[in-house]
């Protein structure tokens, strides 16, 4: 973990209000793992005051990518960065997905912007020759991130692209085909979706790793803002340090 000065290589929209930001930093790229995140400074002044945490979307060669949605003033400022601008990027932070165990098919379940960390995880699956299936859901076609996910199975709440329903509904259609395979779920999305996946992992008796988010200031364990209730002991875990990736059995969402 370090404060890197990374140069913007490109920044462009990939869905409504959702941007793909590609940065150059050989060192950051070389130490990043799928599931980790960075805390990015969006302003040179004290307003907005805090950095903005984003999953590392992808990392290859000397590049690190992020996917973000414009939801407020901080992300609006970030969306206005230009090629060549330097950004202060603190990272890589947190733990990462554990993808080395003996599952046969990796199941990626992404809701909305929850697709962010999975470019990088898919890259590892391909390198390791692991089978995988990607299910991406969004409210509608406009908000659905399809960029570089040709192989994914899509779902929209409105049904104007892919299956009508959620990423979980789409996955349900494949459950029968997968019943003899050892699967492991990797998920990121709204809390309601993650709660369902937590239940699903119990009923199917499969492991599920969830990528969580929460309001945080520092991103490296000192502000203690990003607490999440522990399911396997008393008290709280910190999303930034104990996570952001949690086995679904360990947390109460």
């Amino acid at each position, binding site marked *: *973990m370090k404060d890197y000065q990374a140069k913007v290589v490109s920044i462009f929209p990939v869905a409504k209000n959702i941007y793909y930001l590609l940065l150059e930093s050989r060192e950051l790229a070389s130490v990043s793992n799928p599931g980790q995140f960075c805390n990015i400074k969006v302003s040179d002044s*004290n307003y907005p*005051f805090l950095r903005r945490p984003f999953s590392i979307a992808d990392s290859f060669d000397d590049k690190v990518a992020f996917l973000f949605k414009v939801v407020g003033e901080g992300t609006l400022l970030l969306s206005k960065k230009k090629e060549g601008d330097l950004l202060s990027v*603190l990272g890589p932070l947190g733990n990462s997905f554990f993808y080395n165990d003996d599952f046969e098919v990796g199941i990626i379940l992404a809701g909305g912007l929850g697709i962010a960390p999975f470019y990088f995880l898919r890259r590892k699956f391909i390198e390791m020759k692991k089978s995988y299936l990607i299910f991406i859901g969004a409210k509608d076609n406009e908000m659905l991130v399809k960029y570089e996910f040709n192989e994914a199975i899509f779902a929209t709440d409105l049904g104007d692209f892919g299956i009508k329903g959620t990423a979980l509904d789409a996955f349900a259609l494949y459950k029968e085909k997968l019943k003899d395979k050892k699967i492991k779920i990797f998920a990121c999305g709204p809390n309601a979706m993650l709660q369902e996946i937590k239940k699903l992992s119990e009923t199917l008796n499969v492991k599920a790793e969830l990528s969580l988010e929460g*309001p945080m200031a520092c991103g490296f364990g*000192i502000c203690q803002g990003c607490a999440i209730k522990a399911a396997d002991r008393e008290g*709280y875990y910190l999303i930034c340090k104990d996570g952001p990736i949690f086995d679904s059995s360990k947390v109460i969402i």
Partner: protein
Amino acid sequence: MIDTRVKIGNLTLQNPILLASGTVGYGNEISEFIDLSKIGAIITKSISLMPRIGNPPPRITETPSGMINAIGLANVGLEKFIKEKIPFLEKLSAPIICNIAASTYEEYETCVKELNSISSIKAFEINVSCPNVKEGGLEFGNNVNAVRKITEMTKNVSTKPIIIKLSPNVSRISELAKAAKEGGADAVSAINTIVAAAFDIYTRKPKIKNITGGLSGPAIKPIAVAKILEIHRNVDIPIIGIGGITSWQDAAELMIAGAKGVQIGSANFIDPEVSLRILDGLINYAKMQGFNKLEDITGSYILD
């Protein structure tokens, strides 16, 4: 050469830049970013007699040029602190000031008494003003008799300097500083966070679960300046200034208002390397202004 040393009670720090309680944990994370041997002192996260799991989330929200937090003094408790955290703290080259939080007079006394024999702890900062816990906290911080009594009781069991961390959520902070001085305090820290709240206008729910929390960051700096000045003009006690410092200019301003040392707080979250830049900037500033030592900046205001 500018003399950077500051004296607080019987403790001499190599420079006036301190890292504030709750913004550096127990030193381990921040040591990955900066060489702590260059820092005046680090102040640990508040320790209480028993462990505290802290408040339910959300615990933090951003506000204009600041943030509100209600962590709830989450900490490992005295026993685990001594067993697990002290060995690491002993390896750090920065002097350690241990921050103590409690719900009763006796709890403050017990914590200081137990920790007084640990040689790596150089001073105690007594938190009489946390706005985010149900018992203790502000109830003590608002009451001159309570502040005097806590100061006396902790001073009696400590051979090390006692620093009382004061709340700005009072009508006359100088009265509390006076009570701390009467109780025998070696210094006061000012200010702790300011009680604040924020709503999400769409859900109409508070943005933090505790409803209210403590405001910190650049937004509170002018309040810190006013409170430090009030203490400096009314009570003869060393002041450690804290509140919204993110640059050497901010540090200089709090020192001009009367602070002998300054604490860097929320800024550590955004830029964990900022404190050393503040120190360098402050030294340059002192040179530029023709001061021989950083302590000359303290209380150098000109009010006409």
